[in-house]
């Protein structure tokens, strides 16, 4: 942790070497986040560039209270959402009544590799994918998602249920392909 603190201090002084070290340390994880939100590799790279640029130019705003990784992650998620908002009109008009609760197959999930999971998440429609990422992975509440995305709480809930349903279907299909049905 002390090493990271020293790097942060050096980044505050615009030390290029420290900036590159911070980038090398966190880029793979942050790129993973960008890829979860954005299907397109170029879009994910654009967001990664913007995100790290913001991190290095606003690093003096990091108070040091929470974890540095958490702070970086929040910037990346926000950048991804901003990019989505700019380039995509979320189609989130499904009502909660039309969606039914679904549960994923835990066993099928267990056998899934990280790469396979990323492909599955990326194949979700933007609206499903965004709510799924925010709720299941980032741990946002439906109320927060609704506020951030400017949608209703029910829409957020329905998007999540539909995302899970679609994921389950895809998992099932994948499982059947793997082991034959």
């Amino acid at each position, binding site marked *: 942790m002390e090493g990271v603190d020293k790097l942060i201090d050096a980044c505050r002084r615009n030390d290029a070497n420290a900036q*590159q070290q911070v980038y090398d340390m966190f880029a793979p994880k942050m790129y*993973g986040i960008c*890829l*979860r939100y954005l299907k397109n590799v170029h879009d994910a*790279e654009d967001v*990664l*560039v913007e995100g790290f640029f913001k991190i290095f130019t606003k690093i003096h705003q990091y108070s040091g209270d929470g974890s540095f990784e958490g702070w970086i992650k929040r910037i990346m998620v926000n950048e991804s959402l901003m990019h989505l908002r700019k380039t995509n009109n979320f189609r989130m008009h499904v009502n909660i009544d039309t969606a039914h609760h679904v549960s994923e197959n835990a066993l099928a999930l267990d056998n899934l590799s990280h790469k396979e999971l990323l492909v599955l998440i990326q194949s979700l429609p933007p609206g499903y994918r965004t709510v799924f990422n925010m709720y299941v992975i980032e741990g946002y509440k439906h109320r927060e998602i609704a506020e951030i995305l400017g949608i209703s709480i029910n829409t957020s809930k329905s998007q999540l249920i539909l995302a899970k349903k679609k994921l389950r279907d895809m998992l099932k299909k994948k499982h059947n392909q793997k082991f034959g049905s």
Partner: protein
Amino acid sequence: MKSPDQLLRDKARHIQQAPDAHVWMRIENKLLKEDHRKRMRSQWVTRWISGIAAVFIFVAVFIQWNDILPSPAQTSEGTIASWEELEIVNDDFYNVQRVHNIHLAYARIGGN
């Protein structure tokens, strides 16, 4: 036993992928451009401040110079406002000064 959501979360949080090398170059270029922009901005600010300071100094010197110049002289013809006028009325400064002094002396003893 972990819930499916927990399983998904754990797995998804470990998704990592190294970006292409050119991404860092793009970030580096962007940072350099920003640094250059900041420097240019601070240079402009410095230039503006020095420009404004120069104007102030010029005005101050101008005012000071005006103070150094003799105040309007009085003659029997009236007030002489400037050197040019003074020269027109009377080329001989000594005489003008003398007239002026006479007027001052009159003023002191209460005459016109």
